[in-house]
């Protein structure tokens, strides 16, 4: 049932992605204008899939790739929808919707589902730690989309070449400000995610920080985003450079998420001694 619902969500994400991309070229057609609503429908199916899974299994095994990607993707779509309500930046969906589709497909393609959640993880800390860490990263995913649009718009303005496909791109100032807002939200969430994870590790394994690969990577990414935020606040780091750095940060996170655990098996990757 939950798998069936997730497949449905993936299908709607596909439709939403197509609709958002249509929006880039002809923003006035009645269907493309409603793209965020289509994505929202996909999000509802996605939510139902997660809820169904939770009630059937009693937990979400986020130590497994499939569930982790599914939950992360769900939070990312949620973050986008919130941004959409406040900023009406439908163009962002042209990146978020395909990304959501890819993640959902990846969950099916590479995910091993149905494994038992190890006893060490059957605690209330798990959802708290994971939700916070994922929410922070979801904000960065949206910031990634914002930055990509920023760079495209900036490039066009510098090259002085415009195509009809650029018509509905938001102003650079809007994008830069939103990028900042997402950083301001994402960074504390990520920090809390790391702190709760560490506290929980301390309580369970008697070790707050064990230098395992995921922790090292998270620490580095945390410092990277911290430096970015600091630069924005004090040194006038903004615009193109800030957008580029935001994208770099997201690629690092995404890369580690996708291949890091396979290269360096650890507790985060499902190995619990």
């Amino acid at each position, binding site marked *: 049932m939950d798998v069936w619902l997730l497949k449905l969500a993936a299908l709607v994400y596909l439709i939403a992605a197509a609709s958002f991309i249509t929006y880039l070229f002809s923003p*006035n057609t009645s269907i493309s204008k409603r793209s965020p609503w289509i994505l929202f429908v996909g999000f509802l199916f996605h939510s139902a899939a997660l809820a169904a899974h939770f009630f059937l299994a009693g937990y979400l095994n986020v130590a497994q790739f499939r569930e982790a990607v599914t939950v992360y993707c769900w939070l990312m779509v949620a973050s986008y929808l919130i941004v959409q309500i406040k900023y009406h930046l439908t163009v962002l969906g042209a990146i978020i919707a395909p990304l959501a589709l890819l993640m959902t497909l990846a969950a099916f393609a590479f995910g091993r589902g149905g494994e038992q959640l190890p006893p060490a993880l059957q605690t209330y800390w798990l959802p708290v730690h994971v939700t916070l860490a994922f929410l922070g990263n979801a904000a960065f995913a949206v910031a990634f989309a914002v930055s990509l649009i920023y760079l495209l*718009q900036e490039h066009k*303005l*510098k090259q*002085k070449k*415009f195509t*009809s496909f650029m*018509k509905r*791109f*938001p*102003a*650079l*100032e*809007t994008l830069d*400000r939103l990028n900042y807002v997402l950083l301001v939200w994402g960074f504390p969430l990520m920090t809390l995610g790391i702190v709760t994870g560490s506290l929980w590790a301390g309580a369970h394994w008697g070790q707050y920080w064990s230098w395992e690969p995921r922790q090292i990577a998270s620490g580095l990414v945390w410092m990277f985003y911290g430096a970015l935020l600091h630069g924005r606040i004090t*040194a*006038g*780091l*903004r*615009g*193109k*450079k800030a957008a580029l750095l935001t994208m770099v940060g997201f690629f690092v996170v995404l890369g580690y998420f996708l291949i890091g655990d396979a290269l360096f098996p650890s507790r985060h990757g499902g190995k619990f001694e």
Partner: protein
Amino acid sequence: MHKEIVIVGMNHRSAPIEVRESVAFEEAYVNDALTRLRSYPTIEEGVILSTCNRVEVVAAASDGRLASTAIKSFLADQKARRHAGDLDEHVYTYLGPDAVRHLFRVAASLDSMVVGEPQILGQLKEYYDVAQKAGTVGTLLHRLFHRSFSVAKRVRTETGIASRAVSVSSVALDLARRIFDRLDDKAVMLIGAGKMGDLMARQLQNNGVQNLMVTNRTFERAVELAERMRGNPIRFEDFPRYLKMADLVIGCTGAPDVLLDVHAVERVLKERKYKAMFFIDIGDRRNFDSRINDLDNVYLYNIDDLKTVSEENLQERANEAQKAEGIVLEEVQSFGRWIESLEQVPTITALRQRFDDIRRGEIEKSLAGSLKGLSEEQKKAVEDMTAAMINKMLHGPTAHLKNNGRSDDDESLLYVAALKKLFNLEEK
């Protein structure tokens, strides 16, 4: 009964401005002119349209050719007041579907000098209103104009014909909107007193800019300009100091030397904490160092760049106009179907008339022959019975025809044609 649409007129392509002006209708006299137009016996409905780029008379008449001759003499009359000369070579005439297409194209701004400009639709509506108040609009023109308004709207929403800026200053405004999300909290510095800069600053003010700084080599000129535009005058030697406050900088001097080089802007930028700046260079010579555009968060457009964008946008409009022509054609066809459906009403009457004639003929024959000697009461019963029979028989076809007449489909036209043929109604 059947009326045709006729348009006679001239536009910016068919006639030079002197000729257009000579026949143009002054606003105050349009009413009189409409009355005069209506006094021609061949013209049944009429609307006069008179803008700087076109003078046209849209009319409905039972004989289009006669009406077009009448309109020509009507226009010539108008002209005679000013000076003589032949109008014929400047005037175009459209009849029937061609006239419908022409009006739709005018409304959709496809016939405008700057394709896609938005004013024409408003003007069309105004002149239509005047004619309606003057009582020279009937069913046909009413429907035609309202349809043309909705065609214009459809073209506007379904094509990008009007979505792109084409004048240099509106291109600059459009670019400013791509950089800044709002203009009311931005400051503009205008360097120099060129006409173009003046125009651009005004356009920015009309779009929300409140803080305008004006500088000029002669300070008095700057003061005068600032007063006129509700800005703050700044001494020329001081302007680099104020530059850090400006988000948009318009250079419009005739100075042969470069006013700002890339290093000066770099310093300003650092002071502004790299907040974006937009430089618009529209002086006779280059006012700003072209390398400024290479700095992050700074955008420099000179007059040639703006013109290039404007030309691309015009090209884009032309492409969109192709799409718009398709829409117009579609609408002309559907309007044509509506006109033809008007003919269904006479068809129904003619059909009833024909059946009734037959009925009466037969009753008369019978009453004179085999039914001779019926009482008045019986005669009336026969009369009622046959009338009821005809009514019942025709009820279905009539209802069907009336219902179909409301939708502009081909099917109903087919029925009308079939009925006319089957019952020989054409001779009427």
